[in-house]
């Protein structure tokens, strides 16, 4: 039986385009519209989900307002993926954020993007290729609790990590914005990252 996966979007063109992409829809995604969470009928759909992908670039004020309901998916033992540019540090507990300038150009100049992969035996790496996370990030996360680092930067921050301690389930948190790039017809690595995340959520490996 397929896992019940939801995707929370904010109505931007790249969210709408991603949620009409046949490769994404193969996972029988339940589409949830962030401003719609004020309605009980929309909010009640969260109760049925085993996994939730919170798209990048959502309105942080609305996320803060609905954080309790959203995190309920993980409190019930489910998995939540939180993507970048959503001010996650203002509605997740025990994590700080520090912005970084976007480096679109490292591959042109030959400089190192300063991105390092960790825990190569983690299940995510069966679905996401190492090169799929090497493009750019918008800042670094500095969690105060014990998390599993998955991608870090040379300056000691995290770009992707798994947190299995703050809820009964798990959170996978990133500062990258693959939905924006995938849904804007830009950057194949972002598309591979997004597709890999969805396959990982669908498989739900330990």
């Amino acid at each position: 039986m397929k896992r019940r996966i939801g995707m929370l979007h904010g109505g931007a063109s790249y969210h709408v385009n991603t949620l009409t992409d046949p490769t994404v829809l193969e996972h029988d995604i339940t589409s949830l519209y962030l401003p719609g969470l004020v309605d009980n009928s929309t909010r009640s759909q969260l109760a049925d989900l085993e996994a939730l992908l919170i798209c990048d670039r959502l309105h942080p004020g609305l996320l803060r307002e609905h954080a309790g309901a959203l995190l309920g998916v993980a409190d019930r033992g489910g998995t939540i993926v939180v993507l970048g540019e959503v001010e996650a540090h203002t509605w997740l507990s025990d994590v700080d954020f520090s912005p970084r300038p976007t480096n679109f150009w490292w591959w042109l100049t030959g400089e190192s993007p300063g991105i390092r992969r960790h825990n190569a035996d983690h299940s995510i790496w069966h679905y996401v290729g190492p090169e799929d996370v090497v493009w750019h990030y918008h800042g670094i996360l500095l969690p105060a609790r014990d998390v599993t680092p998955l991608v870090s930067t040379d300056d000691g921050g995290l770009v992707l990590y798994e947190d299995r301690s703050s809820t009964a389930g798990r959170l996978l948190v990133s500062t990258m914005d693959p939905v924006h790039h995938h849904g804007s017809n830009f950057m194949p690595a972002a598309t591979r990252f997004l597709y890999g995340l969805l396959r990982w959520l669908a498989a739900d490996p330990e």
Partner: protein
Amino acid sequence: MAPVLVLTMGTPSALAAQHDLVADLDLYELPQTELKQARGLLVGPHVDQVFLSQYETKLDRFVHGGGRLVVCAQVALPFATGLTRFIPLTYRSVCDLTVHRLAAHPVWRGVAPEDLTFRRGVAGFYGRGFYPDPPRCAQVVHGLGPRRLPLDLVYPLGDGEVLLHGGNDLWGYADDDTTAARMTPQLLAWVLSEPPEKA
């Protein structure tokens, strides 16, 4: 109220921070906001089009009354008269992504098309798709690739005008060290100028 409003999605815009005549307006406050005092409304790529498409009448009324609506986005859900869905391009080479100037317009005065085609030598930032069916009265300013597919267009609507760019916000190039930086001040000057006399 500032004469130029930028619709924001919960984070302040750099444009409003840098220009006295520009203010941020959170998208979800649009229904309660009287637009009569505004001269221009700027809509960028991150704006919720599901929401905005419910306010087409309000936006049309604003433009009909002499306002300037600037849309820099890949429109998925049209939210004003004359807007159509953006079509992503299957591109294979720089040739497909080359920006061609088809008409002069004050917003792009002195902006070299090469500075739009390439950003630090990379093609594709400016546009990767097109608007297939511009309104008949539209002036197509830039076309993309060998078929000159409409990427930037300006059209009259009532007493106002709509400027449509099929990419990221034109004011996001403000700090570029090329002629592309000219678009920001020229866009603001155009928004604040009097609409053209009707023929």
